[in-house]
């Protein structure tokens, strides 16, 4: 498709026909758009260095450089358009893929990512992130929630109650994300809802990132005594599948959407099946 895109009554999502990456989100209902590049990267886990012997491990996130490595520069893509759902399947590598979905009546983009088993035969521990990059002028500020309740402003390389001397430019700016993380300028807000608690940050202005999976080869010497290297049922390493919901709205109206959507994500309907006509349950 020379112009791959997904569209419903609320959003139009454009993709780069060459690389297969997300290119732009258009809010059709409110008539504005935002260039958004999204891809997967991995931080090379530190095994200890001259500055500190501290290795990345279960307790400690410590990449050995501030620049993450792209999982792939291109994604193989497949477009599926039906009346009930529109999907773009992205295959970044043998261990990283994603499906982006738009459904009629839903004002958000759903990203279902599948990551793992993370390969470690090269001897490098890997901490995999999904990063969104936009031209929003965020001045080092981003926002994460605290257990789905108060959303707190975070500032890069800054703490509100003491003078911070930042020694870890990536890990020192990571914060817990329980249900949502967002960035905004004076007019526009990009919100990402998570289906589980993750670490998140905004390392560059206009960007936000969430750590989706990690597999490490060194113990961080905090008492655990083994590296975070979960083998999974088949011994090849865990595969993780999860969802991010992406909302693009005006900064003034964004909370009207992200608050109820986050609750639906945390407490979704329970689904039970019965053979035949099943029980007659009253509403």
């Amino acid at each position: 498709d020379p112009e791959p895109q997904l569209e419903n009554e609320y959003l139009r999502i454009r993709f780069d026909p060459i690389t297969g990456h997300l290119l732009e989100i258009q809010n059709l209902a409110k008539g504005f758009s935002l260039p958004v590049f999204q891809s997967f990267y991995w931080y090379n886990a530190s095994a200890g260095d001259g500055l500190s012997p501290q290795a990345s491990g279960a307790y400690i996130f410590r990449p050995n450089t501030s620049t993450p490595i792209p999982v792939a520069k291109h994604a193989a893509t497949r477009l599926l358009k039906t009346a009930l759902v529109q999907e773009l399947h992205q295959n970044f590598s043998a261990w990283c893929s994603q499906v982006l979905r738009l459904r009629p009546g839903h004002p958000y983009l759903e990203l279902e990512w599948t990551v793992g088993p993370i390969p470690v035969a090269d001897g490098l521990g890997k901490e995999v992130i999904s990063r969104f990059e936009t031209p929003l002028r965020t001045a080092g500020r981003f926002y994460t929630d605290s257990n789905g309740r108060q959303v707190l402003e975070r500032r890069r390389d800054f703490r509100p109650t003491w003078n911070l001397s930042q020694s870890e430019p990536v890990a020192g700016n990571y914060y817990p994300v329980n249900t949502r993380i967002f960035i905004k300028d004076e007019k526009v807000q990009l919100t990402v809802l998570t289906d589980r608690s993750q670490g998140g940050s905004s390392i560059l202005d206009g960007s936000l990132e969430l750590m989706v999976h990690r597999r490490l080869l060194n113990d961080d010497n905090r008492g655990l005594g083994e590296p975070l290297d979960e083998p999974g049922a088949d011994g090849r390493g865990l595969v993780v599948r999860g969802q991010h919901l992406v909302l693009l709205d005006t900064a003034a109206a964004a909370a009207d959407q992200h608050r109820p959507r986050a609750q639906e994500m945390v407490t979704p309907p329970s689904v039970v099946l019965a053979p035949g006509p099943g029980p007659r349950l009253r509403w």
Partner: protein
Amino acid sequence: PGDSSMLREAVAVAQHHDAVAGTERQHVADDYARQLAKGWDSCQVLVANALSILGGTKEPLIFCNALNISVCPLSETTPHFTVILYNPLAWGVTWPVRLPVRATSYAVTDPQGQPVASQVVPVSSVTWWLRGSTRGAPGELLFQAWAPPLGFSTFEVKQLSPGAPWEPPRWPSG
């Protein structure tokens, strides 16, 4: 008999900071998972019993724990089944249902017996690969369900076409 105490205890154990943060040793992680799985198994019986009493049926009720890789033995093998949704929120929700199936067309009706738009699409090649040697159903039935605030809704699904041989999904070359 169903029992929620096993799950309650497993969740209580998992309040330990190691379980919350993932800083436990691997054999402890395996044990947390075992306890949660056993707890949920026995809690499912309790929920099924409650639904059976509310709905006046003795038919078995099935929970599909592996729907995230599109595995559900009941929908894969049964030409006529019912999908029950319980919405724990205080507002009505619409919810996309995706169930693994072997046939190519189904009729779905809502709680009032009205037809609901549905479609069968092939499972993604990644899901196909994740299932390993079991492989499972080649298609997924999609429809938009809804449920009232703090309440149930039931959707009946009937197979229209016979199960046809499907090609396993493939990625485009390159």
